[in-house]
């Protein structure tokens, strides 16, 4: 006899609370096609109905780099050593852009997707993941322009050399992606209840850029502002930017201690973000 009433072979159970950390990788894997389609949607729809199309991906970093070069190098006189200031800035901005794009994109997850989250279930983490991946593609395109200028300056006879550690560059980008994702998930969860955070993030990113050694070498701040240099030294992002320039342009310094610190912070932030995200995703629709 088929006595199904007493057995406990339930496929799943919907309960009030999630387990502490439930990064349900199996479920995410089931929805991998959705992840892929979200990435595709993000990439192909951004510049639809524009004349310049994907060129916009390139225009923004180029003009920012030009502006930075004029203001910080020509006017303020920051010395970038052997490296042409423009290339120095372009490297910093390209890497920094990836971080801000991840953070901006994910910190809006719940609010921006309330409509769709309110109607259908899929693992919510798919959305921030798709942001990080689609921005990686954007980063790839922007990095290409960096390589183009690198070659240009090289042919011009500038004294440029890659550092041997450049093969670790993808790892660095990955760490950065995770830092942006973790922080973004954390903030997106808080935004569902306290909108204050979405205002904070707007100017917070701007301020953070100045503390992340984007347009100056880390060494410089220690020299010029010995009393406040620690602010930059405690910023994990500064190490990422500084290290990526070290790898790509062989300028500045590499701090193993700083990188370990950055990695630990990234892991901590990522898991904290995941924890809060999990807690929020179950009932955010009631408060958003």
């Amino acid at each position, binding site marked *: *006899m*088929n*006595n*199904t*009433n007493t057995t406990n*072979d*339930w*496929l*799943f*159970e*919907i*309960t*009030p*609370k999630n387990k502490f950390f439930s990064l349900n990788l199996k479920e995410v894997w*089931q*929805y991998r*096609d*959705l992840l*892929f*389609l*979200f990435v595709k*949607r993000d990439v*192909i*729809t951004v510049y*639809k*109905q524009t004349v310049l199309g994907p060129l916009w991906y390139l225009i923004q970093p180029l003009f920012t780099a030009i502006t930075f070069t004029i203001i910080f190098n020509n006017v303020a006189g920051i010395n970038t050593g052997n490296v042409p200031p423009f290339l120095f800035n372009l490297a910093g901005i390209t890497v920094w852009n990836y971080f801000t794009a991840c953070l901006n994109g994910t910190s809006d997850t719940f609010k921006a997707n309330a*409509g*769709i*989250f*309110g*109607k*259908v*279930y*899929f693992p919510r983490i798919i959305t921030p993941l798709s942001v990080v991946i689609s921005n990686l593609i954007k980063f790839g395109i922007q990095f290409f322009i960096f390589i183009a200028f690198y070659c240009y300056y090289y042919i011009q006879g500038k004294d440029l050399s890659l550092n041997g550690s450049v093969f670790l560059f993808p790892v660095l980008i990955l760490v950065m992606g995770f830092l942006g994702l973790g922080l973004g998930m954390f903030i997106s969860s808080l935004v569902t*209840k*306290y909108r204050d955070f979405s205002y904070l993030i707007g100017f917070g990113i701007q301020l953070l850029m100045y503390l992340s050694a984007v347009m100056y070498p880390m060494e410089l701040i220690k020299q010029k502002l010995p009393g406040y240099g620690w602010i930059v030294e405690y910023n994990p992002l500064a190490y990422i930017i500084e290290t990526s320039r070290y790898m790509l342009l062989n300028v500045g310094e590499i701090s193993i201690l700083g990188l370990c610190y950055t990695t630990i912070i990234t892991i901590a932030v990522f898991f904290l973000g995941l924890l809060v995200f999990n807690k929020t995703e*179950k*009932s955010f*629709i*009631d*408060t958003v």
Partner: protein
Amino acid sequence: MEKDIILKAENISKQYRLGQVGTGTLSHDLNRWWHQVRGKEDPYLKIGDTNDRSTKAVSEYVWALQDINFEVERGQVLGIIGKNGAGKSTLLKILSKVTAPTTGSIKSRGRIASLLEVGTGFHGEMTGRENIFLNGAILGMTKKEIASKLDEIIEFSGCERYIDTPVKRYSSGMTVRLAFAVAAFLEPEILVIDEVLAVGDAEFQKKAIGKMQDISKGQGRTVLFVSHNMAAVKSLCNKGIILEHGKVVFEGDIENAVSYYLGGDPEAMNLKTFGKEHDFPIFKLDEISLNNPGRTSHELLQEKEVITLTTKLDLKVKDAERYHITYHLYNEMGEAMFSFSNAGSFSLETGVNNISCDFPASFFQSGQYFLSLFIIEDSRQLLFTESDIISFTVVDSGRELGTYMGREPGYIKPQFQWKNNIEK
């Protein structure tokens, strides 16, 4: 045989906070957290009103759902009925994992997919074809599954011509068709459907209902169906639960559920007994009732059956043939529709008369009607009148699946003599 339970809801409750989320949120959160740290119960779970939109709230928190328990068997089509704000959508949201219940749990043996609102996640800049893939993936299909059904989906939607056009250029009807087409080819064990019939033209409604019938009857899948369209609910579902103020007030056979739901309206009573105030020297009005033959007047009046109006009138005078009764019929808008009388049919007699009048089957459209009674002497003198002496409600009967489920216009649908002389 043992019941094969595919879905089981146990003590589901959902609490919402009323008013603006903002002031006091932080203090409540901190208080809640402080209780949690000390291992105490959430202080805000104890308070809360029942979900009744018409009464003024006493507490800031409200229970949108309270202690909901039900079971669904495999292959069953469960209709969830309730007035606006009874908690239907909240229940569906919990079932489809959009929001978590405050307490209780739902156990399931099958994948649940919801059709809460079709067209979720459509991106206007993408073409119909791209959107089929995106929407399908959002609803839980894999790319392979969608690709294998793509042709069927496109055909069902009837948008072949525009399939490579961005969806933002579509008419709203086309968008809905495309979205429903994607959802119709989902293959979850449990399908949750909310008000899909509210959209689309008659032809598409037919298609949609037919598809839902296929899903539930043909493929033996379990469906949870929420709708205000009683005709559709009756035709599709075999079990119903009624929600009222966030609680289940009825669970059972769909016929009974619909009757309970509509009969819950006190004005739908089809029987009125009169007392002393209707006792006059010449006559005494005892009772007016309406019923379908073979049913009592406590049951709902079915539109497809004969409806009998019975007036119990005690005439105390000898010359009873001098009197007759007339009714005026009004619709729910208060518009007079017609008047009818026993004059000319037969004469009344001294003593208790049970005067009955049969309305043919399928005469009334579903809706509420009011009758005014006139008792007349010698065909000219008004002896007694009372407006709205009784009201009655005629309900949709179940219809053939695949036919139009909406309400036809107007109030009556007389059966005229149609003829067709074919020229040869």
